């Protein structure tokens, strides 16, 4: 049985219809946009305002750490993490803007990873600050901040992880079902071929 013999009416109808190559090309160029999303003009304008502010704030923090009065170690860590986080976010936004506001899927993922790392870093730094504070009330307040940031980041991560696990389990089950379905289809086709008296591709020659 050739592939053409097996083609359904639907397959043949599709084959019969001619298409304009120019229209197809234009369509394919259009679908490239699915691999990325574009910032709206409003978002772009906001980003252009935000990037210099972002870098200026990061630079001010870095300068304060370098040349400012000595801070307790916890505060220094908090400032360092915040400066690093702001620099990373600014760099990411600038990268997107310089590429015409296009955000490819990988850049979105990178931003998510960055947000998680920044959240955990901020929580750790706030915890250090809480430990270094002498005022008990202020220390408890800072500890609460550390807890809320860590819990928020952790919950987000856990929910994402659970969702992925559930989806991966469903995919694994479906892949098993697919293998079974393909196997039974092949067996049925083999049975049909035998019934038709057609030679099988792996048929050995009859004994002499």
């Amino acid at each position, binding site marked *: 049985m050739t592939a053409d013999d097996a*083609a*359904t009416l639907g397959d043949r109808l599709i084959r*019969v219809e001619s298409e304009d190559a120019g229209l197809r090309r234009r369509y394919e160029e259009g679908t490239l946009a*699915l691999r990325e999303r574009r910032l709206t003009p409003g978002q772009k304008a906001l980003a252009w305002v935000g990037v210099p502010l972002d870098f200026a704030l990061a630079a001010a923090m870095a300068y304060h750490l370098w040349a400012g009065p000595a801070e307790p170690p916890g505060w220094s860590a908090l400032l360092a993490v915040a400066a690093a986080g702001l620099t990373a976010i600014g760099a990411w936004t600038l990268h997107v803007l310089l590429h015409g506001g296009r955000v490819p*899927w990988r850049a979105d993922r990178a931003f998510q990873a960055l947000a998680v790392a920044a959240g955990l870093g901020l929580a750790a730094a706030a915890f250090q600050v809480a430990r270094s504070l002498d005022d008990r009330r202020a220390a408890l307040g800072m500890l609460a901040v550390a807890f809320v940031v860590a819990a928020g980041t952790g919950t987000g991560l856990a929910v994402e992880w659970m969702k992925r696990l559930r989806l*991966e389990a469903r*995919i694994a089950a479906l892949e098993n079902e*697919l293998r079974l379905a393909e196997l039974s289809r092949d067996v049925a086709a083999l049975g049909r071929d035998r019934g038709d008296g057609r030679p099988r591709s792996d048929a050995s020659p009859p004994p002499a």
Partner: protein
Amino acid sequence: MQRDPSPIRDEILVLKHRLGDPSAFEELMRRWEPRLLYYLRRLVPQEADAWDALQRTWMAAFRDLRRLDDPGALRAWLYRVARNQAASHLRAESARRPPADPVDPDDLPDLAWTPDPEDAEAVHAAIEALGPAHREVVALHFLEAMPLAEIAEVVGAPVGTVKSRLYHAKRLLRRALEAHEPGGGRRHDRR
């Protein structure tokens, strides 16, 4: 009962798309593009409109596929999205569309007739001569061998109306094919 491999593969691709695998959606597009384009070209008058509607179908599908509750229902969902996109081209015409067929669909006999795949070219030409409502149901029926209930879900009409449209479309097609090949009408019977 063992399912057909093709919908299982689609379901896997939908779940992989939800996991964030960019190649899964591209694979879905590759698998569905020819059939959706054929369907859309039966709905809109110009080929360029069909390509535009197909592009917008993918945009909408990419955005909303994560919200599809049952990935197993992808086929009807995709056709419905495509139909909605074509409808925006046809809004003006749809106001002038004739009302539902006056015949009571429950009185219609089942027309199990299906043309021979060998006659695809003649069938394609005959489908073009049908009205839009008939063209649509017959395209879904021949492309996908869709059951009436699923076609009704796609076109947003009662099953009875779909049955009636399919009955009339097949009758017209059969007549056109018999006229196309005088004396060879019996050859088209495939029950």
